[in-house]
């Protein structure tokens, strides 16, 4: 009996072993790299740093968390981060719907493929190249202001501001919203829309009462991407943000790479972890994971 055969017989007789063999490596990967890293993060957040020498002092103290709660600026930064992440998510839902609807319901097979490609193509270019491109568009003498001047309007002062961050983030993560929304629109049987029309509902009413609820899991799935990607970003705020544009990620970055206060950075990094945990729980309630 060959070795292959031995294994396949074993796997057939004891399905548990087959599962263990299949999941073993990924599970090890998950436990060692992901859970261990989060565990280390949580442990470090209770440590402190020696001011003079910069050495880490292991221990258990709430100093970092106390400082986070007592200095208002950290609350502001957290609210700014979460607020912009939420605004970007809502913007992307609104922008994704017409694209997804047109792609699935209106376009023929060839146009549909072309639209799909157009949505995906920006993902092929570097994230940094796209952010820098927006920086040039929104700058004082950039494309946007040139166009406004040409049609006789005053300059817009949105370069290097929270508005700029909102625009750039919404652009960056839009494909991640369009794809799941399109997938969930595709899953709605056309017969249901016809039935709705037969029963006298108008177009918008059908959209609101039939399509929207049925596509909700897709929207929430997209929101997981847009929200979490914005929440964890620090490069876009650095490049297109202006004064007072720091995100949680920027504070973490400057405390790790610049100040060498890793425990404080770890403590602050616990916050997005908690926010995402709550977000994912709600998303699961809304059925987002069935849509992925």
């Amino acid at each position, binding site marked *: 009996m060959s070795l292959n055969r031995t294994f396949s017989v074993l796997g057939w007789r004891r399905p548990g072993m087959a599962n263990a063999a299949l999941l073993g490596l990924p599970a090890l990967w998950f436990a060692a790299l992901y859970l261990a890293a989060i565990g280390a993060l949580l442990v470090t957040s209770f440590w402190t740093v020696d*001011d*003079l*020498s*910069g*050495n880490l002092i292991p221990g258990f103290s709430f100093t970092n968390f106390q*400082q986070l709660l007592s*200095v208002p*600026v950290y609350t*502001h*930064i957290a609210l700014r981060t979460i607020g912009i992440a939420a605004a970007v998510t809502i913007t992307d839902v609104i922008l994704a719907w017409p694209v997804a609807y047109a792609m699935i319901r209106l376009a023929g097979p060839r146009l549909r493929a072309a639209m799909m490609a157009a949505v995906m193509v920006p993902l092929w270019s570097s994230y940094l190249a796209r952010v820098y491109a927006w*920086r*040039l568009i929104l*700058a*004082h*003498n*950039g494309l946007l202001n040139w166009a406004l001047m040409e049609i006789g309007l005053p300059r817009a*002062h949105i*370069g*290097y501001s929270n508005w700029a961050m909102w625009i750039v983030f919404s652009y960056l993560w839009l494909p991640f919203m369009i794809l799941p929304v399109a997938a969930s629109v595709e899953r709605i049987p056309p017969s249901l829309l016809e039935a709705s029309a037969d029963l006298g509902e108008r177009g918008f009413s059908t959209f609101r009462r039939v399509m929207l609820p049925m596509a909700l899991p897709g929207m929430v799935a997209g929101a997981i991407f847009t929200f979490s990607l914005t929440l964890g970003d620090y490069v876009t705020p*650095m490049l297109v*943000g*202006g*004064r*007072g544009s*720091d995100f949680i990620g920027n*504070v973490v970055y*400057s405390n*790790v*790479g*610049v*100040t*060498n*206060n890793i425990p404080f950075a770890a403590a602050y990094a616990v916050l997005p972890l908690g926010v995402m945990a709550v977000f994912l729980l709600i998303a699961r309630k809304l059925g987002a994971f069935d849509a992925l």
Partner: protein
Amino acid sequence: MRDDFKRKLAKLALYVSMSLPFAQGAAAAEPLQSIGQGEGVLNMVAWEGYAQPDWVKPFEAATGCMVHAKYAGSSDEMVALMRSGGGDQYDLVSASGDATLRLIYGHDVQPINMALIPAWKNFIPQLQSPAFNTVRGVHYGVSYEWGPNTLLYNTKVFPTAPTSWSVIYDPAYKGKITVPDNPIQIADAALYLSKKDPSLGITDPYELNQTQMDAVVALLKAQSKLIKKYWALASDEIQLFTSGDAVVGAAWPYQTNTLQAAKVPVAETIPQEGATGWADTWMISAKAPHPNCAYEWINWVTTPKVQAEQAIYFGETPANTLACKEMDKQQPGSCEQYHANAPSSYFDQIKFWKTPRKDCGNGKDDCLDYSAWQREWQIIKG
């Protein structure tokens, strides 16, 4: 009785542990006695523009030490990099005066044997054994170059040079001002306030007590509403001035040189309040894997020729007094332009970056240390 003894013991332990870093800092490992065969590799943390091919290529050819440079954007980042991976990742760092003491007291750098650095005796006297790299007679680094933080302005908006730093706090330029994203920027505001409001009693912009800091923070918070962007990299500021998003700001001569070369209408000035500045030091990591190459590098870049090349490229002043002639040879008039022949009074009017510490230097101990500066800076930026 027992408790009392315990308490005394705890106190003693505390004193010993507190004095330990200093004791170790002064009595670290013996410096190198002679420069041996190069190790073939040299890893350094440096400011942008400090490892240019103009002098790196000939160095590699002459010594066989291949240079790998990692650029850092701030002194804080330099300190963090030197400590990363247990401290043996890099051999050398071009630390500014606000990083040097942190590296020395953190045991991150080793003492230098000045007998092996022949150019050292030609340095201007203030940079031979300055307090920011020499502790109790032990040299922990070799001075390199220095210069002022200047006021950069668009000449279309300012036909004549502003005479005061007040322009970067002036609501008239709201949304068109840029300053470095760096806690040490607090010292610039403190210097300005020390002249504008003498009643605060600021004598040294790096030694601020809580009252003085509160006044400086109030000024900087008001300024933050006028800021277009806090720049993190020199190239950020160059872009801001090129696009017209900023018309006035705090800068280094490097930005002015780059912008003027690109025909952007800018100029720089040192206003009447004076300026903060930097004085850089090459320091060797305590655990440097390639110390011979590190010494070779320090000797290479302190020669008059490289000192002059560096000075002209970055727009700063060399430590080696013999570099003046060499500068004029490379670019006529540059010795004068970059103050390489200036009297020491010019050097003394610049308030060089140094690490803020609790010790105020006047017997008092109520000054804010650097971690407090970092906290205040985050609050100012919002």
